């Protein structure tokens, strides 16, 4: 398990969970197409996300990776003019059913954004507010969950004495870890991450990357990243996207090692080697 990566930061120990070599799909995507105002961004994606594993979505900008991520927790509902076709099943449940309780869905599937976006409150309130809104009011339970999620992301020793100080006063890396803690506090089973390290400096980026790796087995993680080395380091599975005509397509999907060392498709091979994109 990961120990100290940089002075002053410690990642908490993580329990082991179901091994990743026995893949159980937790999200099943079939025939997924996303378009904005009529223009196709992503066409006909078939993909399975396996429980407890880290799946990296890689490929050049504009291939629809973020769109795919947004469709998984129905964040595409917020984009005017966005149409989604195809099927997405989470634990057997059709995510795109109009009768679905989207708030409950988003409690199970959390999302981390590229730019850290803590709310303009104290650290404590950032974590307690989502819990309260989802119906958890008991004081002891609230503070337990706050402490647990802050410990999970390694912030507890750093902020335990100033939980009521403003979240916006934290550094960029700390803010992003706080956002991850905020997603974790709802005890989701899946975490969607859209380039979570790209807005951070290299040191913080390393810390967050270690944190993501530590979430393996306990959570299912889908991460969009432009950093091929990062994907190689932490992912179990990788999905490579490309834009053959003007819309994004899934070119190849498989175990991370296989994608990076023996890619089947020549586009994948070129991208990995850095010749295209």
């Amino acid at each position, binding site marked *: 398990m990961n120990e100290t990566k940089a002075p002053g930061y410690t990642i908490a120990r993580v329990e082991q969970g179901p091994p990743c070599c026995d893949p159980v799909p937790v999200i099943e995507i079939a025939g997924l197409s996303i378009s904005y105002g009529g223009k196709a961004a992503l066409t006909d994606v078939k993909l399975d996300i396996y429980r407890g594993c880290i799946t990296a979505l890689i490929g050049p900008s504009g291939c629809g990776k973020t769109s795919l991520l947004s469709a998984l927790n129905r964040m*595409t*509902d*917020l*984009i*005017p*003019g*966005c*149409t*989604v*076709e195809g099927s997405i099943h989470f634990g057997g449940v059709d995510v*795109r059913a*109009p009768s679905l309780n*989207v*708030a409950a869905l988003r409690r199970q599937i959390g999302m981390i954004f590229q730019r850290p976006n803590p709310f303009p409150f104290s650290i404590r309130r950032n974590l307690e507010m989502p819990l309260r809104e989802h119906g958890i009011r008991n004081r002891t339970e609230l503070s337990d969950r706050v402490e647990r999620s802050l410990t999970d992301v390694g912030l507890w020793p750093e902020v335990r004495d100033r939980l009521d100080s403003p979240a916006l006063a934290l550094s960029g890396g700390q803010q992003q870890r706080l956002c991850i803690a905020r997603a974790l506090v709802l005890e989701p089973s899946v975490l969607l991450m859209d380039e979570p390290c790209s807005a951070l400096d290299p040191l913080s980026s390393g810390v967050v990357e270690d944190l993501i790796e530590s979430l393996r087995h306990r959570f299912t993680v889908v991460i969009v990243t432009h950093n091929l080395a990062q994907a190689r380091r932490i992912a179990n599975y990788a999905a490579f996207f490309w834009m053959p005509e003007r819309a994004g397509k899934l070119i190849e999907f498989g175990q991370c090692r296989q994608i990076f060392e023996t890619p089947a498709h020549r586009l994948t091979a070129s991208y990995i080697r850095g010749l295209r994109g």
Partner: protein
Amino acid sequence: MTSSKQNTLPLSRSDTWLIRVLAVASTAAACILVLIVLFMLQEAWPVLQRIGLLRLLSDPAWHPAEGLYGLAPMVAASLAIAAGAVLLAGPFGVASALFVRFYAAAPLASAFRLALLLLAGLPSVVLGLWGLTVLVPLIGRIEPPGASLIAGVLVLALMILPTIALTTEAALDAMPESYLRGAAALGLSRESTILGVILPAVKGSIMAGVLLSAARALGETVVLLMVTGNVVRLPVSLFDPVRALTANIALEMAYAMGDHRAALFVSGLMVALLVLLFVLVSRRLGGGWSFNV
């Protein structure tokens, strides 16, 4: 296939209620204009239908008791006063803005700017009071009776000057620094820069501010009530007492009945349309909107 026509779908029951309440509030706000148009037309209709707009403008005099509804002298007075106020306030307002930006040292500039802001915030009735008790007697000494077209022009100019100055100042601030640097590099004097580079560059915004102020001058009631003498006649000299269209409404609404009242509503509509015309043209020229309108 899910598509989003709205910004978002309601996530919970409280959200459905929220959207309903908000939509009601917005509809209420949007309806006010509709209501105003409806009620104004309803009240004005009898006269418009029976007497007609042409007669309203061409009747020889304003004697509602005798069925004469000639608005022409008052329309002329309103236009003349607004024109005079704008002609006076325009140069002074622009000069004030140039003063604050290019001529005054920092402490003097802030003090002057504060004065402009305070002047902009003065209620029109207070300006009218000063005009009535101080300016009108002064004018009366030059040429009786004192309450006159020129009094209206002067006080109204004072009222709209801060608006012109502040919008010009905003336009000057929005001007790219590169213009000034370029002029300096060419060795142009401050005045040459102002006349040759700056004023042509902000011309549109200044015009927009001026038109907005003209709209305000046309719509102003209380000041004109207090200082113009309220006599219905076509202004011949600057010192003639006159009655503005807006002042007329304020004076006679209290006791007007039937056609008389309807005629007042017609004149109200005319004022509103004139003002809106100026505001639209001002907006077209790139003006924003002013808090003081």
